[in-house]
């Protein structure tokens, strides 16, 4: 398995997109921290950018990579190697390289300009989101063999999590505004990793006082170690479910 991961990583590094991605994140983070006055403000702007760009790039890169290395996988399948091993190596190769790029591109500037718990949460959230969206990309890729279709599904997924989902939530909250929705919103947050990550970082910034009753409730939940643990557990679930589902599909399908 390690050998396959090594080949995947080598392949990824060679095509230089990952280097460009790293540089892009690095420039973005340094720019944001130099523009904004306080580190908190920088983190806040960075959070928005991270939650928008990281899922998009992860999902698009994951999908294209999967389709591009289709022949390589076919070759491996013909060898006496288990399919799940091939799939997991591909997944880990992509996810690890993208997270490494994120750690360098965002992690180092955060460490330099805004070290602390909030920065740590931001970086952790980013890494989780990378893993989650690569998993979703692989899910989209194993569903269909048509490359265009696969990328289309992947983009739709990104669109859903970044935009449509929030729209739906807004609609639900607005329509049922007369009911106590605090716990419902909590559940709704857990159903979207992007929202979950954002709320987690926001609550660690000063803005939580602005969030009124809902914010106080969130703070009492996410503020405790238990709550943070739970949030990350949900994140892990968000990684595992698509990975396991797509691995299952990959194992059974006719190459």
């Amino acid at each position, binding site marked *: 398995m390690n050998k396959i991961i090594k080949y995947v990583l080598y392949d990824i590094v060679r095509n230089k997109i990952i280097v460009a991605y790293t540089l892009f994140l690095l420039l973005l983070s340094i720019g944001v921290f130099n523009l904004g006055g306080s580190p908190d403000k920088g983190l806040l702007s960075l959070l928005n950018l991270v939650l928008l760009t990281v899922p998009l790039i992860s999902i698009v890169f994951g999908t294209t990579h999967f389709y591009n290395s289709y022949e390589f996988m076919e070759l491996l399948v013909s060898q006496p190697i288990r399919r799940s091993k091939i799939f997991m190596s591909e997944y880990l190769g992509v996810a690890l390289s993208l997270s490494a790029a994120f750690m360098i591109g965002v992690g180092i500037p955060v460490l330099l300009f805004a070290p602390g718990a909030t920065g740590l949460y931001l970086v952790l959230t980013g890494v989780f989101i990378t893993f989650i969206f690569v998993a979703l990309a692989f899910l989209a890729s194993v569903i269909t063999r048509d490359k265009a279709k696969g990328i289309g599904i992947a983009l739709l997924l990104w669109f859903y999590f970044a935009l449509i989902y929030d729209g739906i939530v807004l609609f639900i909250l607005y329509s049922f505004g007369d009911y106590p929705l605090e716990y419902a919103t909590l559940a709704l947050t857990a159903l979207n990793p992007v929202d979950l990550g954002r709320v987690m970082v926001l609550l660690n910034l000063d803005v939580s006082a*602005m969030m009124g009753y809902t914010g106080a409730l969130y703070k009492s939940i996410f503020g405790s170690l238990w709550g943070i643990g739970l949030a990350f557990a949900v994140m892990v679930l968000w990684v595992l479910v698509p990975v396991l589902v797509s691995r299952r599909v990959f194992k059974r399908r006719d190459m």
Partner: protein
Amino acid sequence: MKNLSKKIVVWTACTLVLLLTSLQAVGGTLKVCTNCTYTSVKQAVSQAKAGDVVLVDGGVYLESGIEITQPIRLIGQNNPVIDSNNSGQIITVLSDNVTIQGFTLQNVATSYTRDDAAIRVRQQNNIQILDNTILKTYYGIYLQYSDGIVVKGNVVKGENVGRTESSLGNAIHVYYTDDVQIIGNEVQGHRDGIYLETVKNSTVERNLSHQNSRYGLHFMFSDGNAYTHNIFRKNGAGVAVMYTTNVRMEHNVFEDNWGAASYGLLLKEINNSVIYNNTFRRNTTGIHMESSSRLDFRNNDFERNGWAIKLMTTCIQDTFRLNNFTGNSFDISTNGNAQHNYFEHNYWEKYSGYDLDKNGVGDVPYRPVSLYSMLIERVPPSVMLMRSFMVDLLDNMERVLPSIIPQNLVDERPLMKKVNHDNNREFVQVLRQTASAPWRER
């Protein structure tokens, strides 16, 4: 020659006698110390006649229930401490023209029926309370039904950690008293820092009110007062002022009132007042205003607040000019569509318009209310989506084609650059000339 020297001696003696008698007429001095004639303050005060000075030397006096019934000056030297030892009120002033200066008064227990204070003035005129330190008391300085009082340079420090609001008194409590000057005091750790109820023609100046459980400054029915150069910091709920007209609030700083129910300044039914040159920094809500009309906000700085101003629709004919709004999460939020307030020549950091004719005034109007802030006002749980891409998108769309946000809440002439309140006189002059007539005159 001998005659002359004799004359001089007689003269000197005469002058001395005269001087002594004149001193006697103004008042004698009663000294209080451990080995003086008087060893307790109470004793000396009860013996003192009108015009006397009671001079208390350094040391700790375990006393309470001192009643001043003559116009005397009670002066502390070398920082004497009067410790009530939780046995009740320390000084009660029951005479006009009294001065209390230079004491440390401490340990007055909570008394729900008597409202014990370190110094209480009841129905008297012309009282001066100067340079005292008041520690761990229920109420600090309590003035009621009096007139012409000066409270200056005092430090009132309570202990409010882990105590409920109801078991705390106010640091400076003024009730039905006119012509009060509260200057240069530092108050902290009480329920309200400075509390005024039905107080007229008074000045609250250069005070520092911080870390009080409820309000830094709290007044009601107190018309015609001026509040200038005060600092209100980290109070439980900020500053709340109500039911008053003709107030002048200038050069105050409201900062770090950060919490779920904190305001920099809460205005409720304040009318015909001016709020100039204040700074609102890092408050959850800079100004929350309801039912407040004909207020003039000018040259204020709103920096890094959650909401700079929450303007309820019950407020009408308020004018906002030459204010700076920087780094606030929401500049203005409101709870309805009706708007009868006037915004002009403010600097909004979020403004993204242009200025073709380079006159320093943006050519595109700015709408400071965002769609999302209205949404939060209506559906509080939607804070969950704070700073999400969706919300930004909606806000920008709404800004281009406003349909939900109030049409009339708009700054037609937003400034391109931050107003420098001290050095921009020329610029302001130019603006005045080019400006349209203010709201009232239209």
